[in-house]
């Protein structure tokens, strides 16, 4: 079974966020990075499939050169090789362009299963996996919290998390794409031996032009206008007087604000 798992490197969840000077993004100099949480679960799910069915696990990451830390961690935990989409053209992509780029790199591998996390902890679009499935013409299931495979590995049975405590079990034939929800398993630690071994595993670094993508094709359809911290605007004003006066004052106030 050939399994690709998409892993994004994101700021650590408990980092203190500071907005950069031109308010276009967070100040990355004060951040440390880690694998996106649901992606780490997706990797564990991929490694378990490989343990059951044999084959190989390929990590695919789109990100700056220092995302190599997260890639190495994936290799240390047991992935066999990695594809690193690394190029200045890949900076600040939206979900469509990210999916397009990843699809261009992963498609030719013709994997049996592609895993992504449910959504990234930084931008939180939750679209990359689903869009990629459409682009690669694959069936997909999102928000998966349990996964079973048939003996021959040709059919997946997955449990999806719906609203209000409802779940859905569905079966689908491979090749397929599955977006994984955090908590589906207990991710393993990288062992010391694994870390040593990871150094020798191949990482294939690809640029946009390697993938036949030009800057135009990747132009984001949306951009961050400005970033700011939520401002606390709640105000409490006490209306004084007896019930009648207060009621009249309240009505006047609501009218004045255009509420009624």
């Amino acid at each position, binding site marked *: 079974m050939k399994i690709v798992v998409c892993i994004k490197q994101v700021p650590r969840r*408990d980092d*203190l966020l500071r907005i950069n000077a031109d308010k276009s993004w967070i100040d990355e100099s004060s951040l440390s990075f880690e694998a996106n949480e649901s992606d780490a679960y997706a990797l564990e799910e991929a490694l378990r499939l490989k343990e059951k069915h044999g084959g190989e696990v390929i990590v695919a990451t789109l990100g700056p050169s220092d995302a190599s830390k997260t890639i190495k961690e994936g290799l240390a935990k047991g992935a066999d090789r990695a594809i690193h989409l690394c190029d200045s053209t890949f900076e600040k992509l939206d979900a469509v362009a990210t999916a397009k780029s990843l699809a261009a790199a992963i498609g030719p591998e013709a994997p049996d299963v592609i895993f992504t996390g449910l959504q990234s902890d930084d931008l939180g679009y939750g679209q990359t996996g689903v869009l990629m499935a459409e682009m690669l013409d694959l069936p997909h299931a999102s928000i998966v919290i349990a996964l079973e495979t048939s003996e021959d590995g040709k059919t997946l049975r997955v449990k999806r998390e719906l609203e209000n405590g409802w779940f859905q079990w569905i079966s689908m034939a491979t090749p397929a794409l599955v977006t994984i929800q955090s908590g589906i398993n207990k991710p*393993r630690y990288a062992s010391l031996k694994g870390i*040593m071994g990871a150094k020798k595993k191949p990482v294939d670094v690809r640029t946009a032009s390697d993938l036949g993508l030009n800057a135009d094709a990747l132009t984001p359809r949306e951009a961050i206008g400005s970033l700011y911290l939520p401002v606390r605007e709640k105000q409490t004003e006490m209306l004084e007087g007896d019930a009648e006066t207060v009621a009249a004052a309240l009505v006047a106030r609501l009218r004045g604000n255009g509420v009624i």
Partner: protein
Amino acid sequence: MPPLEREELPFDVVFVGAGPASLAGALHLANLVKLHNSSGGNLGEIEIAVIEKGAEVGAHGLSGAVMDPKGLAELMPDFLERGCPVEAPVGKDAVMYLTGSAKFTLPITPPPLDNHGYYVVSLSKLLRWMAPICEEAGVNIFPEFPGQSLLYDGDQVVGVRTGDKGIDKHGQPKENFEPGVDLLAKVVVLGEGPRGTLTKELTARMNLDRRSDPQVYALGVKEIWELPDDRLEAGTVFHTLGFPHSGEVFGGGFLYMMKDRLLDIGLVTGLDCLDPQIDPHHEFQRFKTHPWIAGLLDGGKMISYGAKAIPEGGYYSIPRLHSGGVLIVGDSGSLLNGQRLKGLHTAMKSGMLAAEAIFDALVADDYSSDAMLRYSQKVKASWIDKELYEVRNFHQAFEKGRMAGLVTNGISFMTKGIFPKRLPIHAGHTRMRTLKEYYGKTDVQKYDLKFDGKLTFDKVTDVYHSGAAHDEDQPCHLKVVDTSICVDRCTEEFGNPCERFCPAAVYEMVGSGGDRRLQINFSNCVHCKTCDIMDPYQIINWTPPEGGGGPNYKRM
């Protein structure tokens, strides 16, 4: 848990702790081996590993810091060209004496505190810069792997066992249990910083401190502030004495200006106080209320917090630095100059001397205690020894209070350390007085400062800014041998000082009456080691938690 087969991984040399001492040592050793092999030597590949308990190299790196570049320049003469992230060369440099409301600038900076030619640096940044340079030279660095215990063959150290991962709070293996591994090594180098876990174990087992004085420590509590304007130029360095400490408390303040309008501000408080009520974090908060300091911080924002112990004992507290198959470097070996509050340069130099001794041992293929003695001799013959000898009585002189300390140190400076001769020193935990002895009563409330959340912060807020986190589902890493003492004897005698001396609100007495007990909020721990040092009964053992836990320092 059933006994398990542990994996053994052979290395040649394992450094414990990725601080400046270990990283300098590992890099120097890699360089020596490379030079040797390329000039016809036949050592071949030497596998060097550095293990670090933090989530990444630098995550547990906390210092001032004003760096004397002497050590780094020997390791890497072109450190500036190679992009060493210094914040700024030291510019304006002054020492102040603070009273509750005023400050007096010393007309001349006393030579030991003169910092010209030095650099303001952030240790966490410096280490993050050094790590990839070490890796390029072939050193294997493993963050998230604490050294749990030493491996022995008789009395010869033959390796390090790393901590288990994936154990739940009841001590049972979880689904993702990953047992620690045995890293076998010809030589293990302990660069664990102050009060190292393995260093403590080795020192006790091999009696390494039988000829040395006890170690005494201070605690540095520190915040980084982002200032609203350029009121202080990068490279500005202020040291303070006096307020908020009473005359009998050892310590002083520091303000070092970094780039990007970021100010290091910290207070060092001796952990050998007589007063059982002392709270170093609270003292630091009071420090900031001094009008001069509050003015400097006005309009600024606190962005980061941390705390770490400092070994102040100096020369006479240096233990034997070697034993069969093992060497001790940096703060773990008491190689810090307490008078100058500087240990980065000596730590790096000691790491390099260890590398040289190990290189000789590799060539001779002899790792016995006699072969390791080479390192102790090298330290003795180096500028580390000379520098520490001159200030050998620095801390001792303060045991009788600040004035006595200043006078004695003045004499010592003027006579280049010839006078006084050896002064006595006592481990901090033996000096702490009971409430009755110190206050004459047990019902005492020393502090009355209310934290305002702008200039002054409670411990919980500060800890949040240290990034400290631990997986909650693991055994508590603070082992209190006997918690029954907490409820009666300690309450009565010392008033549960752990609630105050810990700068991270880890220890809390909760409940009342018969339900009163000690609660340990271990997830807050910033790994400063104060509890292990200062607990008057010496029943708290700090042990490394699961790898990756602890503070997450970026610019400390």
